[in-house]
């Protein structure tokens, strides 16, 4: 991956490490990193953590310590102390005094050992460098093909130990690429790596939506010369047509109990919201008006549906009860607010606003009603939350190319996800596995 130069951002970091908490902008300069983390904003409180190269990982297919470091940095909660050259594993007695001099507050060291059957045993230990105490041990045995997954699980473990919150690194992201005239639906790790194609098609694919258990995707495919909703089981590749009514079938999203999909159908004229029973395929109409209703999604408890409607003259976000009653408007400022996604903890709504001809990711605090734009880009699309509600993934255009980004909810830490070549769009963050 081509390294994007942000040389000006390095200056404050190199001049004075303590300036980190106040510096305006910096980019990770870790040479192995296949992603770029951009940090901006004042008053960041990040845990400085030392991560030793794992013993034995140089001969393993994946570098556990590199994946762990990248995950922790991308979360915005950690700063990996660079270039320590530590030669440690989980059984070592680390020199805490020296680590404290390097401003590290925590340390992870471990090993990756190939077993006789080809699997790997991953062991790690976490230390609190400030107190010099051990904070826990991690151990699992995995197939070589799951070494990345194992590293993400280890990152979740470290994240939870040090922040008290559940990590979401061992999750998956679905996205679509377009290369010349070929479209692919990919399932990748939460860092964009390890992508596997679930579907390739000569016609567009849009709107992938994860089932609550993460085993199936619903999506819209145009392979029969019109938008049709499919449900696709990832492990087997088995899929079936879920909605192919007369007209367009689009914008699928799952009910929390996986028994039905919300979707936009035009079978009765206009784009209106329907609930489709997954077992029978029967569609029940939820909205009745002459305008556009689309992009429906349930709240986590299934009691509310958030959606977009132009019933007020311009596209705005609304919510209603699951049976279609009690419609209330959610967004009021601006003339174009679309693509709502509710955070799993129910506290935030992210969506896209057109502001002065630019399309930007917004984050709305549902208890205060305060919304803010969190990006500097101008063609943002389709934001969705990580299952721990701490990061947002969205599509945008960077230097003329489509790209996927993650951002913290305050917009201060962003990372461009690794991905396939060509245009990359339509991200959807999957549930916990």
């Amino acid at each position, binding site marked *: 991956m081509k390294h994007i130069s942000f040389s000006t951002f390095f200056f404050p970091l190199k001049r004075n490490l303590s300036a980190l908490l106040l510096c305006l902008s910096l980019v990770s300069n870790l040479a192995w990193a296949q992603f770029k983390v951009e940090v901006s904003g004042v008053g960041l409180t990040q845990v400085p953590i030392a991560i030793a190269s794992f013993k034995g990982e140089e001969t393993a297919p994946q570098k556990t310590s590199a994946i762990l470091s990248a995950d922790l940095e991308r979360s915005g909660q950690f700063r990996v102390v660079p270039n320590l050259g530590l030669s440690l594993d989980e059984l070592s007695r680390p020199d805490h005094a020296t680590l404290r001099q390097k401003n590290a507050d925590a340390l992870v060291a471990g090993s990756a050992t190939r077993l006789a059957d080809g699997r790997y045993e991953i062991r790690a230990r976490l230390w609190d460098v400030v107190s010099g105490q051990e904070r826990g041990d991690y151990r699992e045995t995995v197939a070589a093909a799951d070494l990345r997954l194992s590293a993400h699980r280890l990152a979740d473990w470290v994240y939870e130990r040090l922040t008290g919150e559940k990590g979401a690194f061992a999750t998956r992201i679905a996205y679509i690429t377009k290369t010349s005239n070929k479209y692919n639906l990919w399932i990748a790790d939460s860092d964009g790596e390890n992508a596997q194609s679930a579907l*390739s*098609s000569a016609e567009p694919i849009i709107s992938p939506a994860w089932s609550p258990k993460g085993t199936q995707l619903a999506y819209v495919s145009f392979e029969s010369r*019109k938008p049709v909703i499919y449900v696709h089981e*990832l492990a087997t590749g088995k*899929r079936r047509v879920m909605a*192919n009514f007369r007209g367009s079938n689009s914008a699928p999203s799952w009910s929390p109990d996986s028994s039905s999909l919300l979707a936009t159908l035009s079978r009765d004229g*206009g*784009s209106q919201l329907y609930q489709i029973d997954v077992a029978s395929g029967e569609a029940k109409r939820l909205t009745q008006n002459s305008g556009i209703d689309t992009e429906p999604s349930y709240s986590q408890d299934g009691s509310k549906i958030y959606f977009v409607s132009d019933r007020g003259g311009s596209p705005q976000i609304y919510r209603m009860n699951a049976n279609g009653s009690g419609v209330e408007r959610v967004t009021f400022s601006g003339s174009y607010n679309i693509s709502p996604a509710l955070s799993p903890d129910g506290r935030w709504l992210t969506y896209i606003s057109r502001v002065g001809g630019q399309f930007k990711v917004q984050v709305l605090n549902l208890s205060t009603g305060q919304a803010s734009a969190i990006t500097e880009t101008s063609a943002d699309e389709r934001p969705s939350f990580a299952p721990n509600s701490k990061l947002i993934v969205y599509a945008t255009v960077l230097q003329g190319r489509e790209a996927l980004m993650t951002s913290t909810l305050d917009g201060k830490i962003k990372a461009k996800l690794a991905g396939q070549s060509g245009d990359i769009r339509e991200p959807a963050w999957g549930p916990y596995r």
Partner: protein
Amino acid sequence: MIKRSLGILALTAFLTACSSGVKLNEVPVEDKNASAATAPADPNAASSPVSSAAQSNVASVVGGRAGAQGVAPAGVNVVYFEYDSFALLPEARAVLERNAAHLQANKQFKVQLEGHTDERGGREYNLALGQKRAETVRRALTLLGVSDAQLEAVSFGKEKPSAQGADEAAFAKNRRVEIKY
């Protein structure tokens, strides 16, 4: 002949109604393809489940492609729209009349009216905007005497631009409904 004249009168009224922003009554559409939703399995589905020791495994599938449904009349079979608008422009009339005559003479033909938008904005909202354009054309053809059973209004949103580029010239070419046989 009388029927056709009435159709043109109706279309004129329709064009006027559209451009003056008067809302038309919703045309109820019988759902003839409802049974398709319960189609048990897609022919492209992979038949053999893939099992693997790895928990990260994803099986790969190749999507299919549909064929044509009739023979198009000679000439341009595309209707263009202004930005953020669903109103038929005066130049749409010749295209619609030619296609209406062709469809009435060939009642076995079925067409898809494919709505498209320019690239600005979200994919799903653009899909709904393209649908609105396609349905405007469907109503116009119905008023010209075409059987509704020959027409399906669908949308591609911004997924299939006919012109590349991010300028108004490209946008104008992309805001369209294609009459596809």
